[in-house]
């Protein structure tokens, strides 16, 4: 089935774009959004393979991934706000207390 490999290649591309974003950007919020993009690429893989194999387990996994992403969004954005209160900045380079 050629359709499946199309979806897998597309999600590999989206995952790589998310990786580049996390590595390249300095803004913490944009890095956070790129992590969400990577999570979504993985979700797309899960649903495509679940459809191909005729099995719903992958879609249940996507459901749990979304729950984790929602929890992560709540805690992560609270962390970003706490960081902004301390440093008056959301630049990842300003979090250098543990820099070697």
């Amino acid at each position, binding site marked *: *089935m050629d*359709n*499946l*490999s*199309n979806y*897998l*290649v*597309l999600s*590999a591309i*989206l*995952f*790589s*774009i*998310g*990786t*580049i*974003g996390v*590595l*390249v*950007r*300095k*803004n913490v*919020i*944009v890095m*956070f*959004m790129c992590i*969400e*993009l990577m999570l*979504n690429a993985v*979700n*797309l893989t899960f*649903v495509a393979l*679940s*459809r*191909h*194999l*005729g*099995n*719903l387990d992958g*879609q*249940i996994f*996507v*459901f*749990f991934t*979304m*729950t984790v*992403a*929602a*929890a*992560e*969004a*709540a*805690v992560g*954005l*609270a962390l*970003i*706000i*706490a960081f902004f209160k301390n440093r008056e900045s*959301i630049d990842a*380079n300003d979090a250098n207390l543990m820099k070697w």
Partner: protein
Amino acid sequence: MDISALFFALVAIVAVVSALLVVTCKNPINSALSLIMTFFCIATFYVMLHAPFMAAIQVIVYAGAIMVLIVFTIMLLNIRTDANRKAFHNTALGTVLGIMTLLLASTFLARGKIIDLPGVITPELIQQVGHTELIGTVMFTEFILPFEVTSILLLSAIVGAVVLSKRNLS
């Protein structure tokens, strides 16, 4: 090329372009709007993969809840986009590493073999019974323990968010 392949290509191009815009836009609010576009494209793929419930959840949870949270944070922090301050760092190294990730994934895809192991869930069954009912049956029988653990995870996230956003812990 049939119409569904053409539609797939169109939505895929929109998804990749808006994902690239997430990375390249200097203003975080533009990145957030592009990310919403990507989420809608992924929801479209879920519909094309006969998973309408996942598409609905994608739009409600991701494009709705999570993105509203992110846009709200951007608004609350009120970050001014400084023109003279660099928005990127390590561009060359990051791009090389990202492309290496893509090459690694493509190698796995090219070398791996897709097995044909057709299960019981066919598009006809989804059409007949309904996707939400099928998901619900599996989730509340086979996956009931992970489902309950999820509620503990959400509770801890709520507690964590409240603790972190309190001004001073005494």
